[in-house]
């Protein structure tokens, strides 16, 4: 069977992940219920005229995809597959607001043109002149996982050799205000915010972009191999254990074989019980969490995938992401589990190479 290697990564998040190696500096947050991605200087990769025109999501996507491609020494990939929960909500909001505020008059097409969910993937393809396969998945918290699965299948069936895969989400003030109204975002008065031992509803919301180059061959830059991935639309809390165990079973792996589990805890008391089940199942395994660093957004799990890839390549778990005190001398298998609001449950298994 052809293996799927993670050969390049690029990340923009609420941490300074656009440069540096692996979370050496940490920005901690307990007081903001929305945290924004730390922005790099875009001039090196995007012409100044375009920087002004592009939404944050497109810029972040171009920057991080560029970084991942460079690291893997790929100029033009065979395919570009993106995942985004809310899509290009900045331009979408801008256009809708113009429609409503100006009663459908005096509109210009620019923001409409840039509002489609596939704009990031399309702009990357345009920039690279990549005429290959180009897909965008938009299913909430499994948008990125859908892209990963698609890429893995294409490498296994030899339809492609090198695929660019990413998860991107941007925010707008209006969407954030709406999420505050329905308590998807934590209430100000519930400070200090924490992901572990939280006692409040909702999440600290954020944005970001994480890209990866997946290939069918190992390189000096390789981080890990993507072994398996599965996702499921809805589960009861009582079904999570079975979901995880049958996934491991079908890959011939035992719970003890997992050297670290990366959990998507986001501090929402209504839904973090799902993760309690998982952490109980893996009580003897080093546990990792990351959404206190990245915040929550539909494709935050792509940041988790970045963390997991770095753990295997660097063979260490930075203290900032440790959920328990357990460590191992060698990390071979890492399992990721994520869900959002009780839906879109995903499992990803990666292995040291």
């Amino acid at each position, binding site marked *: 069977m052809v293996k799927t290697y993670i050969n390049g990564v690029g990340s923009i998040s609420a941490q300074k992940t656009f440069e540096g190696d692996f979370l050496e500096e940490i920005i901690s947050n307990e007081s903001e219920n929305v945290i924004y991605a730390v922005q790099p200087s875009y001039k090196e990769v995007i012409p100044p005229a375009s920087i002004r025109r592009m939404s944050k999501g497109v810029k972040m996507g171009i920057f991080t995809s560029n970084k991942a491609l460079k690291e893997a020494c790929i100029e033009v990939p065979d395919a*570009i597959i993106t995942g985004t*929960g*809310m*899509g290009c909500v900045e331009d*979408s909001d801008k*256009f*809708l607001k113009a*429609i*409503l505020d100006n*009663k*459908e*008059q005096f*509109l*210009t*097409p620019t923001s*409409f*043109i*840039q*509002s*489609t*969910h*596939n*704009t990031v*993937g*399309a*702009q990357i*393809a*345009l920039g690279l*002149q*990549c*005429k*290959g*396969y*180009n*897909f*965008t*998945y*938009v*299913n*909430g*918290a*499994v*948008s990125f996982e*859908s892209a990963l699965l*698609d890429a893995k*299948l294409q490498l296994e*069936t030899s339809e492609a050799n090198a695929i660019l895969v990413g998860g991107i989400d941007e925010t707008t003030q*209006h969407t954030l*205000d709406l*999420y505050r*109204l*329905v308590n*998807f975002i934590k209430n100000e008065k519930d400070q200090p915010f924490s992901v572990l031992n939280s006692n409040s509803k909702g999440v600290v919301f954020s944005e970001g972009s994480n890209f990866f180059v997946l290939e069918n061959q190992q390189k000096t830059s390789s981080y890990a191999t993507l072994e398996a991935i599965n*996702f*499921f*639309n*809805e*589960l009861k809390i009582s079904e999570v254990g079975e979901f995880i165990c049958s996934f491991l079973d079908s890959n011939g792996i035992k719970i003890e074989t997992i050297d670290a589990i990366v959990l998507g805890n986001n501090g929402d008391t209504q839904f973090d019980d799902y993760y309690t089940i998982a952490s109980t199942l893996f009580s003897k395994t080093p546990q990792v969490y990351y959404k206190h660093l990245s915040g929550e957004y*539909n494709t935050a799990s792509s940041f988790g995938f970045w963390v997991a890839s770095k753990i295997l390549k660097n063979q260490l778990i930075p203290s900032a992401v440790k959920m328990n005190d357990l460590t191992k001398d060698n990390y071979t298998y890492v399992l990721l589990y994520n869900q959002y609001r009780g839906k*879109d449950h995903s499992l990803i298994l990666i292995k040291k190479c």
Partner: protein
Amino acid sequence: MGIISAIGNTVEENYNALISGKMGITDIEYIDTIHKNEIKVGEIKFTNQQLEQLLQLPQDNNFSRTAMLATIAAKQAVENAKIQDINECKTGFISATSVGGMDMTERFYYEYFDNESCRKYIKSQDAGDTTHNTAHYLGLKGLVTAISTACSSAANAIMMGAKLIETGQLDRVIVGGTDALSKFTINGFKTLMILSDTYNTPFDNNRKGLNLGEAAAYLVLESENIVKKNNKQVLAYITGFGNANDAFHQTASSENGEGAFLAMQKALKMANLDPSDIDYINAHGTATPNNDLSEGRAIIRIFNEDAPEFSSTKPFTGHTLAAAAAIEAVYSVLALQNDIMFPNKNFQTPMEEFNLRPITKLTQKPLQHVLSNSFGFGGNCSTVIFSKS
């Protein structure tokens, strides 16, 4: 298969409209827009309340119109495939949408802040919420995802579904797309100046642009094992597909139809067919000046001067965006089942750039392979080939 469109609420109604030449383009009734006198649309003549009743949704549901259309069509598809227990085998649902729950968002955008009762629709904006609502309604538990690549979306949902069956990830998958009309898309295409003020005329020299439409359609794809085990009747086979990017412009298609050419080429290669094996093309044919020229040139590049009969069915339904490739997949299968090719209505004057002429009359011919094209913003080009069972 299941479908709801401007020309019918079932597969049978759609087929009858196609063969009797009954088009569904009308004045707009259900959306309050200042453009209502300047445009025509392919509208499904049910109010949201009527759709809720059809589905017997509970009072507190948060289904957008997009989700309701999806659920009506997906439910029909499941019934048509005679599925008793939707979770009896590894089942997935892959749905395409371009605007998701925009119809609700644009209605309540400011009202959300003052009126608590509409806040259930806040999360409906999310494309994923549409898929979740439909999957939940069907009782489906499994791999559920959504694709949004503008007007080629549903073709890509079909491709991913076929891939998941072929690689053994799933035994059965419901694939298709849905989009409801919205002020957002009406104004978007209006600003791009590609909305016709009359009936759309694909591949006509004097074409003035597209009519927007709304629709949803789904197809049930099953593995060979499931078909054998349950002694299923196969409606058609998906034998090839291709996806490519034009990498030319965010919205416009390249002049030589590079992306479309590559998509058709890939699909033919995968199906192991020569261009001459294709009996009929269900073209994207939106009736915009740019699309029809670009698609026509790509067709000539693939088929030389002897292209098979082709037509665009968009004069019947309007351009239904992310649902277009799904409803046209249903039409392609109907073509194969009945050995019939649907007319390209409203065509009068051949385009001056080439000699391609769409068929304008309902035409009978034994069909083995039908090729269906769909292209979208972002240079997204998709082709699916359907073959007779």
